[in-house]
């Protein structure tokens, strides 16, 4: 599986029928989709080889504020 960071506009236009539901950032401007190896994805902001790479990036100090809710038991 590979993962791609997309804008919401790109997702809605070209990937809304993807097999797996995407992971959205907190303000719903970007999302990460998960696709089978070999599946063509264009116009992405960033690509990730595996889930570990996604989370290393997403949980980084710079990005976690955009993805991780602070209210744990909301």
């Amino acid at each position, binding site marked *: *599986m590979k993962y791609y960071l997309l804008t919401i506009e790109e997702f809605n236009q070209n990937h809304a029928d993807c097999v*797996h539901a995407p*992971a959205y950032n907190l303000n719903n401007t970007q999302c990460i989709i998960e696709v089978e190896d070999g599946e063509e994805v264009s116009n992405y902001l960033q690509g990730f080889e595996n889930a*570990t790479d*996604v989370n290393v990036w997403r949980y980084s100090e710079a990005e976690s504020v955009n*993805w991780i*809710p602070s209210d*744990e*038991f909301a």
Partner: protein
Amino acid sequence: MGVGNLPFNLSDIQTELGSTTDTLSGLGLEATPQLTTPFNMSEFENYVAVIEGYYRNDGVNDYGQITGGASTNQFGSGRLSVSFWVKQNAGSHHNAQMLNFAPGFSSSDRIMIDYNTGAGGKLRFNHRQGSGNNLKEYYLNNGGNNSKSGTGGNWQASNKGNTNGQGWTLLTVTYDGAVSGVGGVNFWWNDQQLDHNAQATNGSRSNLAATNLRVGENIHNVGSAGNAAMDFDKICVYSSILSASEIQNIYNNGPKGATLGNPHIEINFNNNTFTDEGTHFSNNGTVNNGGSIQSH
């Protein structure tokens, strides 16, 4: 020599048994193959293939879920134990919701077993009722828990702590609901009972029906901060407080091994299915948003 599920010849069986006969009946087999070699194990009568599997949550936004639990069996009213196997795959240090049992799909009423990165990492059990929490936490990296867990710090893929030979850790919570608050909760890492050395919050609580179980994520959310990058296997709920020797036996048996007696809930992922081999959940489970069942 062991005969596996691959094509094999009668001579293989002869060798295995040390026999000189070359007939199926002479070799003690009740067989219905086409009598042309090589045979497959699946051609023989009474042969049931089991592909031992486990559930992989990749930690992006996926989860496993099973519904249809009997409402009469509740957390908080009696004595029970939850045991399950996990393999930590997180490439970075982050929270991980492991199991959520709940009557519905809201944040308010649920039993949560999770890992939290606070204070260097802690395992937690929370009987959450309404907006109140009955929360008991166990620091992994100080006191006796340092050596018991073997983590010594952040629990992640590069620091799995003490595991069996295949990288799996057995986590067990025993919960005596007759004791007020979380006084009846104990947490085990493999066969070691953890020292309670962190927070305990005791709120009001009543019984919760475990109608639904979500694995790897908050039951009310998707893609949360608690999405676990972990493998899971053999999730069991026993209707008793397991003893140290019983937990030792479960640990020794491993994730593919036998359970202890007949658990009330026994979630397995064999033959590419997510099922309760106990008596609680009436539906088959589902894997969602990229979660997958893998073979051991």
